[in-house]
């Protein structure tokens, strides 16, 4: 990620990094225009914006190839259009019978898990874990590099 030493030989990580940084840039424009001490509500909104940007960049980097990324993108788009009251009915009651107990909880955690059968749920979980890990690494590296450089506020 740094220009001097390439730290991500992984192409997925490169894509994630570039998208996330672009999203952060957009956010930073918004932040720089506001006065420096933000209120707590303002701060909370910003936190959530950063988190949403992280998930959005993750989903868009993966693309529509994976079920969980499709579900995430759908969720984000529906949030953007501010139709949060829309409730899609549970269209797959047949999956619940063939599931272990633990998988029910897993499908709550992984985005789009409810509409998948056990096999694909497990493989989606694997990919999701990989992407989450890469995202966390990227965020950490950004934080380290930014904190070791200019006068940036940590918290």
């Amino acid at each position, binding site marked *: *990620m*740094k*220009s*001097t*030493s390439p730290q991500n030989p992984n192409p997925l990580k490169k894509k994630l*990094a*570039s998208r996330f*940084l*672009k999203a*952060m*840039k957009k*956010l*930073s424009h918004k*932040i*720089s225009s506001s006065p420096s001490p933000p209120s707590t509500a303002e*701060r909370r909104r*910003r*936190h*959530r914006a*950063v*988190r949403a*940007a*992280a998930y959005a960049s993750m989903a868009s980097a993966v693309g529509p190839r994976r079920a969980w990324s499709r579900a995430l993108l759908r969720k984000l788009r529906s949030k953007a259009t501010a139709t949060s009251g829309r409730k899609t009915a549970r269209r797959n009651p047949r999956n619940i019978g063939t599931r*272990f*107990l*633990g998988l029910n*909880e*897993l499908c709550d*955690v*992984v985005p789009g898990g409810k509409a998948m059968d*056990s*096999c694909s749920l*497990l*493989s989606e*979980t*694997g990919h*999701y*874990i*990989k992407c*989450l*890990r890469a*995202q*966390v*690494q990227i*965020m*950490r590296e*950004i*934080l*380290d*590099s*930014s*904190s*070791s*450089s*200019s*006068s*940036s*506020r*940590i*918290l």
Partner: protein
Amino acid sequence: MQPISGEFGAMNNLNALLNQHQISSLHELHSHGQLPQMLQSVSQFDPVASHDDFLEQMLSSVPSSAAYPWEDDHSQQQMEEHSAAVLASKLRQHQISGGAAKALMFQQQLLLSRGLAAGNGCLCSPTGSDGALLPMAQGHHNDGVDGNGFKSIQANDLSVKALFNGFTGSLGQTSNQSQHFHHPQNYGAAGTATPSTAAQAMNQPAVSGSSGGGASGQPRQRVRARRGQATDPHSIAERLRRERIAERMKALQELVPNANKTDKASMLDEIIDYVKFLQLQVKVLSMSRLGGASAVAPLVADISSEGRSSNGTQTASSSNNNEGMTVTEHQVAKLMEEDMGSAMQYLQGKGLCLMPISLATAISTATSHSRNPLAAANSLKISGISDARGPTSPSLSVLTVQSATVGGNLNREPSLKDVSKP
């Protein structure tokens, strides 16, 4: 299928009990020869006894039997084969007599003994899976170490991290044993549906155990073909599906750091906890990210112009950054003229602090490793803001000159050494 399913639940309980006790006995007694001896003594027991009596007899014989010589692998395996043969004959007897539950129990014993043989054989030469687990654990351990160095981490996150770090440290021989216990358990559970082909089920873990579990796909297919004659296609589909799930679970097991769990349920719980943990990390990192948002812009410029050698955009963004720096420096200089305390407070409000140059160089060389040798050199050139007693303007001018010349892709270079104060 019908009469079996009723006893399947009881069988599972017995299974769990047996497994627990055997594993605990393994840990306590540290002698793997206990079980084959126990099995031999089992064959002498009255097979007409009920389930509970059988179990208690088995368990009581565990502490009473003497320690078995551990080095004698071959004779041990011979004994196990012998006991296996005895059990196999008993199993057939029971199948004929219709005592399905006892047959299942004997079968379980057989499978466990087989798995034990496999485990014994494989413990001497650690399998590749164990080796694969270790680098995974180490990789995650490093990750955790970095995370512990992370400054603004929250308390719950720390505890969760400690949890995972503690688990990665406990990867040991138990993982190998328990994996091989896991295999026969699986096969045993799958085989209870068709007791008529239980003999083939017994062959299966032996073959897979001897091949180290790696090439277990082929014997499984052979067994499946045989079973297909006896059972209907629904169960074949069921078995296919179950094996696909088992494959995915194994793949997940390698991803998640705490891979030493035996059964599917706890492995699933582990996976769920890990996903929640990662999501929590994203949340925490996003909370502490905001100050760095403004500093991200130069990084974006870096990445977007990775291939390019022109410094056009970079100098533009770096000059922005440096302007921010110089403003801060002017502020600090002004405050220092009035009062050191207020200067310190101002710096601390920005998340910075004053420190002697020696400490600053030590920190910068420690954090930046081999990335930027110029970082250390640059901080040496920084005349002490820490001295601060002398005239401030020459030091300021030095600093601004430094930051201007550094420019380019060294935007990140600290002209003010900053340390976060949580």
